[in-house]
């Protein structure tokens, strides 16, 4: 397929009939496109239409007007479910199943042959760090473990597109790191990934492009550089004493500029977690 993996043109969708429930416009003319191998984040406050957009792309909701295409086809097209992984927000189905049974059950729904399903389920459980929890009931998993299991469910089949609605919500930093690393690796294999998140730091580190939704409209869209701009030039010095720093201030003033902010740099906690996780691995 040569076209975009996901394309949406002027999408409109409202909830409520206007009779018993007031009509609420969730999407008002959303347009976007996403190519293979791209990771794009949809950002926006609660109620901005992110989950509704994902439901349309997953084939759960029909738009009132506008056009949505996933891998060049209608999102409800038969056979697309195995090529489009979807992780909705909220709880997993079958809380009484074990983690492994849930994967097998969902693989059955997707039409994955039993032998292949068993192999893939074991691989995915290991990929999301849940190999040791394969026999644990879904209801007994922690929030983060359940979210990782949901991510594994989204990877069942042979997804070429991933729709992930807050995949790292409730995850600890190591869990988030695991999911984000997996996303980068999947994107490198050519999988198109659209994700909604409130974890802005993760988005900055993982996504090349973001789409800002507000009240059902695309408020801004573009690469992080384009959206955030380059701002002030930044220089980091190491090994200077107070006298050396004073001379730099003087130099800056002589060149017609100024040092506007000074401080001691401290490593981010996330970077610490990342380093520890890699050492552990």
């Amino acid at each position, binding site marked *: 397929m040569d076209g975009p993996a996901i394309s949406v043109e002027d999408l409109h969708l409202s909830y409520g009939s206007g009779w018993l429930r007031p009509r609420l416009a969730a999407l008002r003319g959303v347009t976007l496109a996403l190519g293979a191998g791209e990771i794009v984040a949809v950002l926006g406050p609660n109620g901005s239409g992110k989950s509704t957009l994902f439901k349309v792309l997953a*084939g759960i909701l029909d738009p009132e007007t506008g056009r949505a295409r996933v891998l060049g086809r209608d999102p409800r097209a038969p056979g697309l479910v195995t090529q489009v992984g*979807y992780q909705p927000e*909220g709880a997993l189905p079958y809380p009484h199943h074990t983690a492994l049974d849930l994967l097998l*059950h969902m693989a059955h729904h997707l039409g994955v042959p039993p032998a292949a399903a068993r192999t893939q389920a074991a691989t995915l459980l290991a990929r999301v760090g849940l190999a040791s929890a394969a026999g644990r009931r879904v209801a007994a998993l922690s929030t983060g473990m359940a979210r990782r299991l949901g991510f594994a469910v989204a990877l069942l089949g042979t997804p070429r597109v991933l729709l992930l609605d807050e995949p790292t919500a409730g995850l600890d930093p190591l869990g988030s790191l695991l999911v984000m690393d997996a996303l980068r690796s999947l994107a490198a294999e050519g999988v198109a990934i659209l994700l909604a998140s409130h974890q802005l730091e993760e988005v900055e580190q993982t996504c090349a492009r973001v789409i800002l939704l507000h009240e059902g409209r695309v408020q801004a869209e573009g690469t992080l550089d384009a959206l955030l701009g380059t701002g002030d030039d930044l220089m980091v010095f190491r090994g200077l004493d107070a006298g050396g720093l004073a001379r730099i201030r003087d130099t800056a003033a002589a060149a017609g500029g100024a040092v506007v902010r000074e401080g001691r740099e401290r490593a981010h906690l996330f970077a610490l977690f990342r380093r520890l996780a890699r050492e552990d691995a």
Partner: protein
Amino acid sequence: MTPGARIALRVARGLAPANALALALAAALVAWVPVLPGGGEGPERAAAWLLHVPAFLLVATALALTVEAWPLLGRGRPGALWLARLPLRPWQGCGAAALGGLAALAAHLAVLGAGFALLAAAAGLSLPQPRLHVAYAPEGTRTVLAADRPELVLRARVAAPVTEVRLRVRVLSVPGTAYAPARLELRAAGLPAVAIEARGSFEPARVALPGARPWPELTLRHAGGAPVHLDDDSLRGLGGPCGTAGANAALAALAWLAPGTIVAAFLVLARGVVARGLLEALAPALLLLLALAAAGPAAAAVEALADGRWLGSGDLLPAALPSLGAAASAMILALLPLARNRG
């Protein structure tokens, strides 16, 4: 494993403690029967009717477990979004869930029925040994025997060997005359007439017949006293023993599948507009209404159990077909428009 099979296993596992509770309840009720007012008169018959209580409990629990096991049964359920996008064929979605739940219920109802018979026997209230029953229907439309209409010919509905005839008639009182027991005569081809006295309505009278052979036609003659009215159950031929009381009780309990199926059809129909909690509350309420209205074959099956009528002879299933057919049609109709909407 298919979704329906997984749900069947889930419901079967969940029903195990409910069945143990239902049997414990049945044991308590059966032990209580002899002290019921009137319990001394045919306590076995009263005991059979108590099967309704644990069966109701079991069916209601099975329906609640089915709703809980399948997130698409009930609007806005947690986890439903995962399944809502899947291209489930009609009998893979809510239909499979309902069938899975009903299959598990069937297995547990059979166990409940057999267990109930054992408990009743342990309490000294053995359920009647089942026998083959042959119903005799009056020829024509007349159903009253009186001095001015003294004779009725009754024909057997099926040709099966019988060894005994049981007569249970309604004795009618005539205004302005003193009450007198009805005196009747039963005639069968080649046999001398047998006199029968009916003192009160539905008092059973039994007449032994020689040998064990089909008697296609019997004649009842009014020989004095009060007039009597005959219904479909008034004259029955009783054949030899069939099966065991435990097997008969299991079949009677299985008749509860019919109201269970009707309510399951309702759950499938209502799933898109009703939340889970409300569905779980409506299911037992609807089941209770069906039980009170004696809709479906459950009441007739338990009556047959109390009566010692062998349920495996097959005349109960045709009676259940209309209600089962209506439930199945409702389910299919509910699922047809959802081939696209994934349910």
